[in-house]
């Protein structure tokens, strides 16, 4: 059990710190939580990119890189994530743990100070960002949004989400759209930045060898200039219990060798209830979330239709996605088999071997997340965003207790909403 300490540094500003000596890296991060909206998604996504270009004492990339190299090649990278209908905007810092720094020097305080300077003291005249940084990062953001098409699977999933969830915040991608990005000006961006600093809930995170007192002190010093005042609540996602109506079908054609079949299902709510979460995680592992899953064993191994056929849960939004890469001619065959396997789960056609294999796989993955810094951070940010606090061990215990009937019950809540296919030009 890794102890995690939570401290509220100011209203709406929370620090969670994991103290452990087992890693060679210390990780520290800051995340601002904003609701996903069409008006703000691109603006929010651009903020950390512009901030990373330079700060008061290190006004350009070369001097900022030199400062990081001096801290034994540390990294502070912009990070924009989408968690349900919350946009998480901030930085992810990764440094050599103090225990491995040659001599007596310590990195934590300098790292927190540099992180604070990047977030709070952007290069410029103090009244706005440097216009050249805004323009250049805006162009990069537009390119980044456009290049989402390069990864055909991610592109297909993004298209599915946007069409299936039309009218819901979940349809908005974490970087927003090209048109929104193009419309950004230095003024709109700076206003959004100031607003975010003043009103967004802030989540600070640390994992490394330092004790919580020292971590708190380092963050308090680094972020002393963070505006004080009342901050907003963490946004709560809209969860639909049912699909919007009959199954909807969408498709695009592109010059590709392989087709992508993606299917979106609604799972209903209940993500705050640890037992419900455990049931769905186990159901997902049986259905398509592991190498012993029905999708892997049937769509891939038995029918040789694909290299991958998997499912993944976005429980805080009440959505399950299934995706596979198949020959264009096999779309229907794969779709039929995927739905047949869901039906099998719903009628309880699950062997005790399948149930136990899935259970071991979910529990193994939860327990090993304690040994991986990145996954641990991801776990805790998910808890923070959903207003839950159970530990990976507690969740593993809950999974240990789930019965077959409860898995079937979860499976029966899963309803097909939409299907998206990426087809070939001649397909």
């Amino acid at each position, binding site marked *: 059990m890794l102890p995690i300490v939570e401290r509220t540094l100011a209203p709406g500003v929370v620090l969670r710190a994991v103290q452990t000596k*087992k*890693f060679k*890296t210390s990780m520290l991060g800051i995340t601002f939580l904003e609701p996903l909206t069409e008006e703000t998604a691109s603006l929010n996504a651009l903020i950390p*990119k512009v901030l990373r270009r330079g700060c008061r004492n290190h006004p*350009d*990339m*070369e001097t900022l*890189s*030199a400062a990081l*190299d*001096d*801290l*034994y*090649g*540390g990294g502070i990278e912009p990070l924009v994530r989408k968690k349900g209908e919350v946009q998480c905007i901030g930085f992810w810092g*990764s440094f*050599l743990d103090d*225990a*491995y720094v*040659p001599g007596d020097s310590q990195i934590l305080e300098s790292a927190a100070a540099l992180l604070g300077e990047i977030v709070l003291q952007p290069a410029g005249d103090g009244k706005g960002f440097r216009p*050249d940084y805004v323009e*250049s990062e805006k*162009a*990069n953001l537009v*390119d980044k949004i*456009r*290049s989402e*098409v*390069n*990864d*055909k699977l991610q592109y297909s999933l993004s298209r599915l989400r946007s069409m299936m969830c039309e009218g819901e915040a979940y349809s908005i991608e974490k970087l927003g759209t090209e048109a929104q990005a193009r419309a950004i000006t230095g003024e709109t961006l700076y206003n959004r930045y100031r607003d975010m600093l003043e009103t967004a809930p802030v989540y600070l995170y640390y994992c490394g060898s330092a004790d919580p007192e020292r971590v708190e002190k380092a963050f308090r010093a680094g972020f002393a200039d963070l505006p004080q005042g009342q901050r907003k609540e963490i946004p709560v996602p809209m969860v639909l219990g049912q699909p919007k109506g009959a199954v909807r079908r969408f498709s*695009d*054609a*592109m*010059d590709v*060798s*392989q087709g992508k079949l993606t299917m979106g299902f609604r799972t209903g709510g209940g993500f705050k209830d640890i037992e419900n979460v455990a049931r769905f995680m186990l159901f997902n592992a049986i259905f398509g979330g*592991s*190498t*012993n899953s029905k999708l892997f064993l049937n769509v891939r*191994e038995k*029918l*040789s*239709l694909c*290299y*991958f056929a998997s499912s993944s849960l976005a429980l805080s939004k009440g959505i399950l996605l299934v995706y596979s*890469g198949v*020959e264009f001619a096999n779309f229907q065959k794969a779709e039929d088999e995927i739905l047949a396997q869901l039906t099998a789960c719903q009628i309880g056609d699950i062997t005790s071997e399948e149930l*136990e*294999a899935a259970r*071991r*796989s979910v*529990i*193994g*993955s939860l*327990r*090993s997340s*304690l*040994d991986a810094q990145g996954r641990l951070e991801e776990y805790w940010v998910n808890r923070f965003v959903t207003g839950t606090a159970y530990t990976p061990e507690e969740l593993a215990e809950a999974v240990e207790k789930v019965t077959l009937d409860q898995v079937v019950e979860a499976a029966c809540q899963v309803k097909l909403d939409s299907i998206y296919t990426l087809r070939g*030009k001649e397909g």
Partner: protein
Amino acid sequence: MIKHTYERIGETLYEETLENGLRVYVFPKPDFGKCYAFFATRYGGMDTRFQLNGQWLDTPMGIAHYLEHKMFDTPDGGNALQKLSASGASPNAFTSAAITGYHFECTEGFWENLRTLLEFVSVPYFTEESVQKEQGIIGQEIRMMEDNPGRQSYRMLLEALYQNHPIRNSVAGSVESIAQITAETLYHCHEAFYTPSNMVLCVAGNVDPEAVCALAREILPKEAKPPIPRDHGQDEPRQVNLRENTRVMPVAAPLFQIGVKGQPAQDGPNRLRQKLLGDLTCEALMGSSSSLYSKLYTRGLINSGFYCGFMDYPGCAFLVAGGESKDPAAVRDAIMEEVERIGREGLDQGLFQRMKKAAYGSFVRGLNSFENLCVEQAQAYFEDQDPWTFLEIYDTMTRQDAENFIRDWFHPEQMTLTVIWPGEEPA
């Protein structure tokens, strides 16, 4: 067993060579709940022509990777992938140009899982039917890679850099080449390369090193076999095969790679030195802390996706730099201008020192990952290197070494530029 202690970086390593020639490495990790095991053979995508029992065999492109897939089938009609994941482990495997590796991570049942790993990798079991069936799955894996611009770009780069060396061949092969694979050929390849004297076992976790050796002794074949002669083609000329290689795909922005072909060092300490110096030189010349990087970024010629580094395989060594750019030729020209400037003025001493400091940090931080630790150790063993001498090598590396490296490698006839130009827009 031999025990090595690296106090400064907090690592201990046990090493043993078994009677059958298998090299075993164990990293004890008392603070961790998870264990990781990596079992690998020095056999990869480039080893298609070799001598077995006095006969030269020409095997189809992609066979090492195909064999990796088929190794999971066990004589009892089961599948080791499912068996391992049913016990909660996360198993997987990969094939590179030079090695094939099988691994799992788990938090419970380590010894049983290690037994499964050692057994399934050492006992081949193929039928014509099961070999045939895999073609659908691997065919889709190949199709998926055909639609992956990053993969395609790297393929094009290797084809442009090399005339004869089998690094040019796709590790997965083509749909046509894998159609020629039979159970008999797979048995030949297994016999030739999956012999303990051609393999390595690396384990990280809270385990008894002696017990790892004992289990390997119990399960694996007893006899040590001599190395198999391999043919990697005619000697490779210094100059590249093609100075440019381009094609069109559905991508948003031009995707480029610049390759620089060098003379590979022989296996042993010189090879590690070349690798470390190659990476350090790349970073100093065009890495994110260099003035060239800042210039290119500011001019909008590269974005934060730009990368560069040193790569080597038996018989070949090259540098790669790549990313997205509106004008890939301008990036190449700017690199050459910087090479000329450094030729006249030399490298900045402060920068070079910072690079060394950063390299130390990133090496130590890399040790966080069990997978990285074990895979690197296995690769180093196959190349007859000791990765733990890196500190001593860094101590002897000078700015002049990096300048000489640049002078030796960066000649126009040793450089190639590959570009994937955006094709049609999605319909």
